[in-house]
């Protein structure tokens, strides 16, 4: 067991583009599945059976192993009413918990603000990848964005250390806060300051890290390896965010979708193995989601934008199993040909915010939503 009990940590893994729920967790005992998926469905014998009715798609072997250890919760039928079926809009809704208007604050950024209200640690939340997902965007909340841990730093090209120190000193003065600046200038200044401090702190992570676990070469596995390094360096990061793309399988789904899930399954498995090797990770859960599921009936070579989807929670702190109900595939129960969500995504966030982080979820998810008992 580990030596110290640490603060709760979350790793959010976004499946960008609309993951096909029905080809991820497959209702294999239902004839309607095979009827609706003549072109991009799996054969009964290829599906990894989980129980008498549901199975994982063939590329999810490593996830199934963790499932058997009781570490994977599958959250069924997740979504929200009246899916706009637009990537853009739907991802915004998942990020901001605002289905009716354009939100400006992200739920994970709000969690970071609650965790570190006085901005004592610029590394409380980190996105691994390019850009800043709206889920982490909250004015005044510093979020580091690290596309590659190995090359992270400011004015790293100045080789003379004395000269670089002077340049960094000037930089810190130029980016110090001012009175009466515009929103954009203030944002630039705080981002620059945080970037400099964060880069300085985070450079210890690769130095402290050594591991026997070999991660695959996929982009998502490399991000997860960077996350493991920063987590194990004890820098106080509590919200890790990363994504994998593109799950927008309108066409060519039969080739693309298993490749994506192979990347995810192998990467996630290596990540948890790495934590285990280092006797740590009991305070880490991972949460996987996508902006919507896809249409029940395939379109010949892929599937179009749908509504209800599936989310996963993984980790030692998770009570493994199936949660909620798979929405009906009966034609009469579909809306515009799509599975109807029966569980609000903000309930899944509420579970994390209250039962994992011990905070009041209402102001974070914009309301009160039913929790799901998938955490220990």
């Amino acid at each position, binding site marked *: 067991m580990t030596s110290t009990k640490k603060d709760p940590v979350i790793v959010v893994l976004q499946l*960008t*583009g609309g993951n096909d729920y029905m080809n991820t967790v497959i209702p294999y005992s239902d004839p309607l599945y095979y009827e609706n998926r003549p072109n991009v469905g799996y054969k009964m014998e290829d599906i990894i059976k989980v129980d008498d009715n549901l199975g994982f798609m063939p590329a999810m072997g490593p996830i199934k192993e963790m499932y058997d250890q009781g570490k994977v919760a599958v959250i069924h039928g997740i979504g929200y009413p009246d899916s*706009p*079926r*637009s*990537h*853009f*809009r739907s991802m*915004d809704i998942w990020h901001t918990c605002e289905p009716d*208007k*354009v939100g400006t604050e992200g739920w994970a950024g709000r969690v970071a603000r609650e965790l570190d209200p006085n901005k004592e640690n*610029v590394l409380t939340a980190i*996105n691994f990848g*390019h*850009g*800043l997902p709206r889920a982490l965007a909250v004015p005044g909340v*510093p*979020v*580091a*964005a*690290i*596309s590659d841990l190995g090359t*992270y*730093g*400011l*004015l790293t*090209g*100045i080789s003379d250390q004395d*000269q670089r120190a*002077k*340049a960094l000193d*000037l*930089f810190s*003065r*130029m*980016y110090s806060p*001012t009175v009466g600046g515009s*929103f*954009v*200038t203030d*944002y*630039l*200044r705080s*981002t*620059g300051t*945080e*970037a400099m401090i*964060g*880069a300085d702190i985070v450079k210890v992570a690769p130095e402290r890290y050594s591991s026997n676990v070999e991660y695959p070469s996929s982009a998502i596995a490399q991000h997860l390896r960077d996350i493991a390094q920063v987590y194990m360096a004890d820098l106080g990061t509590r919200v890790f965010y990363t994504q994998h*793309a*593109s799950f*927008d399988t*309108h*066409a060519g789904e039969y080739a693309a979708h298993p490749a994506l899930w192979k990347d995810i399954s192998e990467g996630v498995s290596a990540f948890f193995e790495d934590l285990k090797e280092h006797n740590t990770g009991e305070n880490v859960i991972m949460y996987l989601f996508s902006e919507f599921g896809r249409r029940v009936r395939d*379109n*010949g*070579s*892929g599937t*179009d*934008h749908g509504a209800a989807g599936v989310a996963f929670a993984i980790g030692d702190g998770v009570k493994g199993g199936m949660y909620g109900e798979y929405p009906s595939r009966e034609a009469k129960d579909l809306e515009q040909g799509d599975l109807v969500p029966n569980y609000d995504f903000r309930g899944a966030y509420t579970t994390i915010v209250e039962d994992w982080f011990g905070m009041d979820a209402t102001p974070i998810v914009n309301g009160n939503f039913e929790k799901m008992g998938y955490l220990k």
Partner: protein
Amino acid sequence: MSNKEDLALMAHLMRRAGFGATWEELEALVDKGYDAVVDELVDPPADRHGGKAELLIRYYPGCLLPGGNPVMGQANWLYNMVSTDKPLEEKMALFWHHVFATGNSKLDNCDQMLTQIQMFRELGMGNYQELILELSKNPAMIYWLDNNENHRDAVNENWGRELLELFTMGVSNYTEVDVREASRAFTGWTITPKLPRQPYGRYPWRFEYREADHDFGEKTFLGQTGNFNGEDIIDIVVKEPATARFICRHLYNFFVADEPQVPAWTIEPARDEEALDNMCNVFEESNYEIREVLRFMLKSDFFKEARFQKIKSPAEVVASTMKMVGSYQFPDPGLARICREPGYMGQDILDPPSVEGWHTGSEWINSGSLLARINFVADSVNKTDLPGMQNIISRMKGEGITTPDELLEGCLDSMGFLALSDETREQLSTHANEGGNLDWSDEAAAAERIAEMMALVGATTEYQFA
């Protein structure tokens, strides 16, 4: 000697309507006169050429048909950005790439991406209806939004939806039924040949209309009923006032000043409603000629007054820095490395994150991308032997720049007549004064001082704006 204010205004125009210009180029342009320069930008004279392809092919033959190699595709385009003599044509190609965001992540075919970009060069300043019709026949777009899977008996809504949501009217101006009907009208609009990659390799795609796969049934679209084909849908949708507003707001956001992100457009008023109205009027009165909106916009006071009101996109940061230091005069041996820089700053050209393109403005900035921007400029100006840097240095020497404040001023002017806040100016001036006067008797040391000062100017918040 040109007046400094004229030079600064011309620098503004060339940053927005191109990828920046050197001091010498700005002086020549000021002599021509502002309005004449705008007219040449929107109507390039016949003797102007695009990117210097022959040099690119000699040094980077893989750039011509990069196939599945995105780096070579990006190198091709970036080189065109910095070497073109028709800067606005190239900038408009980037503009349409932002709006009609198509990505190699799905195509795995940079040849087709570059063909699409070439189409934007040729039609990007022309008639909007012609452009959108050509777009709906563009093989990269057809494949990107799956219209090759949109069949008479199995409608795929991807292209039909994005045509309305992202390329013409914007959300909330149409119904789900309109999406369905538009999609039906584009059934049979496909590409050929559809040979698998293995074992044949990549075949160049071309548009094909398959009558047998087209749904000839009656359709009702935006209140009109008829036996519509794709051309009819475009004819109807282009004339919608929502389309003029949507496209002009995109132009304003790209060329004039940062607007909120696109999803907020149905809710947030425009930054300058009057300017937007005027642009829409010009667009509609000219029968949807993009060129005329550009001409009007670039000559307007609202444009001239919008100096440094936009955060530079990563492509702008990289291309304008390359132009400044002159690493483009023949393809830089590091081109294959440099062309990845916009991606490190959050803009993988030829590979936007999704069909909605990139979020712009302050969303370009996060701690990772800001570090990448600052580091790139610093590393570039540090190469003092590059021809652009040599020009800057010898010009400063020729003008007898000696004192620390003259040094700072010379660097600001060399970097696009950048305006600084009093505070930043004082901090940079203090730093410059600590180093004392420039000593031209040791030219290498003087060059290093200039490079250092330019790197620090490049690290200011002010330099992040165009």
